[in-house]
């Protein structure tokens, strides 16, 4: 068997990375272990909790089930590319203000899934919000305040646009 590493180029948060990976390495492993982009979390590794969500060309995917070699030529967005302490994205501010964050482990995945949803549809219904976040387990908040935060973000965005 051929286990030689391949050199790939990834575009993450608008930054180019060139690195050697083995084919079985998941995007999650590469982000966390090779590139120290540790904001993306592993809660199960088998696609059941949503903690590892990142965006590929704007679409939310589970980085624990994506091979890194499959991500070349795609724009990867991780939590590190969404906002900063000084300039938070509206959903980040809203999660903070509404109390949608407790332990914070599921938060990066929630932020990315919400970002993808709102980019696609800035005025989702409650049903659409729930469908978009149904794969994100959160034990701390019971989701109420997460929903409030998403709704506040929707309002904030529509205010800025109008």
């Amino acid at each position, binding site marked *: 068997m051929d286990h030689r590493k391949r050199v790939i180029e990834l575009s993450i948060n608008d930054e180019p990375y060139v690195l050697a990976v083995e084919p*079985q390495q998941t995007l999650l492993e590469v982000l966390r272990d090779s590139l120290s982009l540790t904001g993306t979390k*592993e809660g199960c590794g088998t696609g059941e909790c949503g903690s590892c969500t990142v965006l590929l060309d704007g679409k939310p995917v589970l980085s624990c089930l994506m091979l890194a070699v499959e991500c070349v030529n795609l724009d990867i967005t991780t939590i590190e590319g969404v906002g900063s302490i000084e300039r938070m994205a509206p959903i980040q501010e809203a999660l903070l203000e509404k109390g949608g964050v407790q332990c914070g482990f599921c938060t990066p995945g929630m932020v990315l899934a919400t970002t993808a949803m709102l980019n696609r549809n800035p005025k989702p219904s409650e049903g659409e919000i729930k469908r978009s976040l149904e794969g994100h387990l959160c034990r701390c908040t019971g989701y109420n305040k997460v929903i409030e935060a998403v709704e506040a973000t929707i309002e904030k965005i529509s205010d800025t646009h109008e």
Partner: protein
Amino acid sequence: MHLPRFEYFQPSTVEDAIHLLEIQKSGARLAAGGTDLYPRMKYGLTRPESIISLRDIPVTPPTLSQDGILNLDAFMPIKEVVNSRVILDNAPLLSEAAGRVASEEIRYMATLGGNLCQESRCLYYNQGHNFQFIEPCFKRGGDLCYFVPKGKKCLAVYMSDTAPALMCLNAKVNILGSGGEKQIPIEDIYSGDAKHPLELGPTEILSQINIAKLTGSAGWAYKKFSLRGGVEFAGVGVATVLQMGDGKKVCEQAGITVGAIAASPLRASNAESLLKGKEITDSLLKEAAKAAAEEIKVVPHHGYSTPYLQEILRVQTHRALGTAYERVGVVSQK
């Protein structure tokens, strides 16, 4: 959790993929979205020597032929199935079932073909076998069923949401292989044996799904029973189509198919016949639901008992028929 090592191929045509399958023989696995395969690989349930990724193969958008056949590329992501206008207009039952698959992220990653070609599942099988379960069961190449120790066969359950919908729509699938292409009814891809639920050969790829469009006088529904509204697989999944006559009162043709209760989706033929040619009333739908629960013997699975699933099958069939009847005349969901 990490994946075991493998060799990786990323062909850009289906033909190249088939060629690679021929060379690699049984050591290779196709990966479409990978959401079914990779967790099993992480658990050590399958250790392919090589992975042939189908990700680079271009996806043809859905088309509707002159004679009303909807042609779907099997490599279409589930999310695109859900979003597709042409599917919503012509096969809304599939849109509804696809919308209930797993979670949003998985719907973006997984493909329609992959959803059909998923493995059957059971509590014993779908976990790592490092320490707590060591004895290989039928599905892991051994000679026992953990839950039915004296049983002679594997009792894993095939849990696709889209499969019962497609079977209900009498879909046909194209299979590409070294021997060329064939088109077969979707029923024929199932072996009925949970150990290897699919009949596909080692060098075959399910490449296309073809569905005759639903007419305006049809109603449909997919009812997925699960304890939670998202993420999990179905306890029972029931798909129904009521094809009504011109007056929209008499049922010309009924489709009732059930998923997540056996090694393949099953058709409730007796129940279907009961409805054919009859004027629809609620008591008739109840009778049909009862017939479905009598003719289909469920396999208990994932914490649900036989009597419970049998009853849920009846209830969900009744509800799915009721919704289908309500939707008669509504061309699409929107």
